């Protein structure tokens, strides 16, 4: 598969292109069907909690399973139905946004507890970070007109060498990883073993 896709990228051969197209479609379908793997894992974990009546957990696991089954059935029966739409719009949307946003509290906590400039490296990181914080917020320009000037430089050429290198290394790493996978040296995604 890998060889066909790579060859299709470098060589404009019609038959190769057709095969590559089919393979890409296969990958899309397989990845779509594989979305259910997480669901099965979830049901197994929570089903086990209920089966073993794990202290402090099994009642919540019942809630999870009931929520899953009811919303899933509602969605399968009629995606445009009022009940499913209500659950999607008011329960899922709200909870998804809320869970994601709760990291805002944790970053405040980390600002106070973890971001200590104990050496030059950490100090440089914090100074650059604080300047960008004041650049992103309109109040920064009110406090000092220099913040947007330095901040815009940091957001442009300032951070460019560091991130460019990280990107290039990630690119090299991808190619090396692909080579290791093709030669059989990398089998972590198979779950280990022979």
């Amino acid at each position, binding site marked *: 598969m890998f060889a066909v896709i790579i060859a299709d990228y470098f060589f404009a051969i019609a038959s190769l292109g057709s095969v590559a197209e089919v393979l890409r479609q296969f990958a899309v379908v397989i990845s779509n069907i594989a979305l259910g793997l997480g669901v099965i894992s979830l049901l197994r974990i929570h089903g086990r909690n209920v089966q073993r009546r794990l202290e402090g957990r099994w009642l919540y696991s019942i809630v999870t399973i009931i929520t899953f089954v009811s919303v899933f059935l509602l969605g399968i029966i009629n995606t445009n139905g009022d009940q499913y739409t209500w659950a999607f719009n008011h329960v899922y*949307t709200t909870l998804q946004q809320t869970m994601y946003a709760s990291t805002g509290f944790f970053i405040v906590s980390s600002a106070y507890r973890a971001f200590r400039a104990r050496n030059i490296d950490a100090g440089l990181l914090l100074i650059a970070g604080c300047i960008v914080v004041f650049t992103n917020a309109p109040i920064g320009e009110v406090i000092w007109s220099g913040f947007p000037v330095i901040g815009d430089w940091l957001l442009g050429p300032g951070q460019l060498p560091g991130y460019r290198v990280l990107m290039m290394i990630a690119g090299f790493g991808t190619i090396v990883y692909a080579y290791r996978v093709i030669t059989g040296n990398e089998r972590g995604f198979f779950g280990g073993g022979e």
Partner: protein
Amino acid sequence: MANPTIFERLDKLDRRIYYWLIVIVITWPLVSPIGLPITVKPSTRALYDGLTAVQEGDVVLIDIFMSVSTWPECMGGLVVETNTLLDRGARLIYVGNSVDVSRSWERLNELVPRLGLLEYGTDVVFLGYYTGADAAASQMAVDMSSIFPADHFGTPIDDLPLMSDANSATDYAMVLFTAEGEVKWIQQWGEPYGVPVAGMGIAMKGSALAPYLASGDIFGLAVGVRGAAELEKLAGMPAAATTTMDAISSTHLLFVILIVLANLPIIYNKIKGGS
């Protein structure tokens, strides 16, 4: 045992105190807006200039990668992009790589009512959710109908007149990404087919996208809610993102104050010459 110093007391401060502080500093400017001015970054202006250069009839692909959780960051910018492109007479095709993309589409229609006034299938199409990331983007560049045999609503793609003009990458005037997922468009559409790529990323992506902007792989970039507010200012339609910037100001100020407070013991000890 000696009395704890002020720094030691500050160090042991219950975290709930600053959690409540952050809630208060967010609430106050939302209830009582200040309206601090926003300056526009060159990358956002480049994005907006690219949008206004679109010609009537051009087909634009918009990838609503964002999930509902990134609405505060990106929905404002998506609204401005949609309104600007509609003003230019562009034809829009929306896709999404997030399972809740249908909700984002509904929200976009609530915020841009004239999307509903367009002739669906001719001026605008919502193809819906896709999986496969890079493989899907690569295949879409060759044959959209192979990834989307029907749109989100189940209409066969052959029954959508717009899709007959927009089945491969070369039919598109540009690709706009939203929130994340930009790399696949750069790598699978921008570089092989020369399709202009731009968009707005979540704030965390601002750094990761800077090299692409510098090398010309993307022509414009609006970053986070700040970028969305800048787009609203350029388009002359201040909305949710602009309103949020006051809360951003207050929270960011508190954030820096907390960092300074946390580092006071280190600064104090360094001045005193201790460890």
